[in-house]
């Protein structure tokens, strides 16, 4: 009796194994071949990131004709002290003189929190990127005006490799979701332009060693669990 059962079980299992092996090989060509075949424009099954973007204001990126149109989040809407003309009602010379008096009295200079840690002083100062004549605008190295919304154009002058990766999709942060429309963070969305390097910090959680053999017993809490 037991032997019969075993026989039936083995037969059933081997049949099901055959069936499954067939199915798997038939339906899974090399994924690279599948990708290579997909060259036609794809509407991503009509999926959209729009509802995940919450109507975030954005501007269309210019200067990358090889990439389908994409946008960056509009920066001038979220800059707290923009437009700069709100405070900069007098010329810079006057404001500098006022600032010197204020500092002599022990007060803080305007923009005291901005310490440029970007490139060596021989390479850049404030006016490499800001426009002295129009503080509401940035400038290129050859003095063409650039809106704060398109600040990536200023960055891309030196960081052309990063800019190409960013336009392509290998650098930076996608907003909303993976589905179109493609909206990405601008450079200053992640980097502080005055101090662009990301700082070292502690991880959000402590790492864990192999979890495969963990038991159901309560574990001692990792020191970072509540960070």
């Amino acid at each position, binding site marked *: 009796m037991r032997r019969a059962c075993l026989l039936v079980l083995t037969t059933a299992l081997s049949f099901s194994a055959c069936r*499954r*092996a067939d199915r*798997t090989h038939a*339906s*899974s060509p*090399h*994924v690279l071949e*599948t*990708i290579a075949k*997909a*060259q*036609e*424009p*794809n*509407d*991503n*099954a*009509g*999926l*959209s*990131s729009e*509802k*995940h973007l919450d109507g975030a204001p954005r501007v269309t990126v210019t200067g990358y004709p090889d*990439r389908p149109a994409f946008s960056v989040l509009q920066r001038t809407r979220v800059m707290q002290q923009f437009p700069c003309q709100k405070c900069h009602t007098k010329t810079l010379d006057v404001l500098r003189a006022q600032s010197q008096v204020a500092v002599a009295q022990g007060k803080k200079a305007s923009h005291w929190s901005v310490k440029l840690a970007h490139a060596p002083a021989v390479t850049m100062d404030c006016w490499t990127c800001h426009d002295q004549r129009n503080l509401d605008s940035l400038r290129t190295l050859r003095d063409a005006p650039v809106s704060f919304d398109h600040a990536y154009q200023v960055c891309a002058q030196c960081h052309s*490799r990063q800019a190409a*990766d960013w336009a*392509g*999709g*290998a*650098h*930076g*942060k*996608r907003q*909303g*979701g*993976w*589905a179109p429309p493609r909206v990405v963070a601008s450079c200053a969305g*992640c980097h502080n332009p005055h101090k662009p390097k*990301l700082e*070292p*910090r*502690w*991880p*959000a*959680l*402590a*790492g*864990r*060693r*192999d*979890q*495969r053999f*963990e*038991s*159901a017993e309560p*574990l001692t809490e*990792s*020191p*970072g*669990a509540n960070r």
Partner: protein
Amino acid sequence: MSEFNPNPSGLHQILSRQVDRRTAVATAAGALVAGLGLLQTACNPLAAAESKEKSQLNWEAFFQGNYRLMTDKEKEDTVHRLERLHELNTGNKVRIGSTAAKEGVLYGYAFNISKCRGYMDCVKACIGENNQDRKSDMRYIRIHEHNKGQMSFEAADDSFYHEVPAAGHFYIGTQCFHCQNPPCTQVCPTQATWLEPDGLVVVDYNWCIGCRYCIAACPYDARRFNWGDPQVPEEEVNPNQHYLGNRLRRKGVVEKCTFCIQRTRDGKNPACVEACPTGSRTFGNLLDPDSDLRWILKNKKVFRLKEDLGTEPKFWYYMD
């Protein structure tokens, strides 16, 4: 019972009737449920209705079919039943989706090892999004800290906890690679895990019997097992769920990264991609020639782990 009785009594006839196992289990369980129901009605008529409903739902769940064989209507009924059970058990509402794979979409992932700095924000976001067991500190993602100059995963440190990035080290994240030729699904004796048409490898937790063959078969150590009852504080439960994704699991079942199926089938990025502050993680549709992912595959020097095994992972690593 096996002895032959030439003159059986009435009771004996009933008892020795040939019954298949399914009917026997059904009859016994039915009697049990009916008995319990009667008892509870007698004791507390107010709570009785809810309790009866719960018993009924649990009873239906016990005989639930394989998700892949269900009609759309059955899938809907199933997720509604799970939603109602959660409400009856906790008083809180969750939304369990059953969104199907869409044509023209094949999900893939790219990971920039030049950019990852070991911040672990992805791991934290993943735990919260996917309702992972807090008691055993389950995690789908691992971040491996490698010494520069080698890439041995045996020599890497997965349990680092210090300021990162540490000098002389680099970081690589691993999780389920959603292989297009997955060994894990082929060994499953109950067909509780399979490859979806949009490339996601998923698990039907109701059909998983916990044999862990899939864990043995996975060459990437991507699957996790619930050794105990998974515990998620009720206030931390993510209510946006999917049947094949982050719905609450039970003891004795295998689970894994689903590329956040509850988010990605709705156009969103997985939680890890959204949480990464360095932009190391890119997700998208491999069949869309204009996707970020396709640009990376075309323009970057990419590689996959253990490519020689022929598992066809849809998870590529690259460097700046």
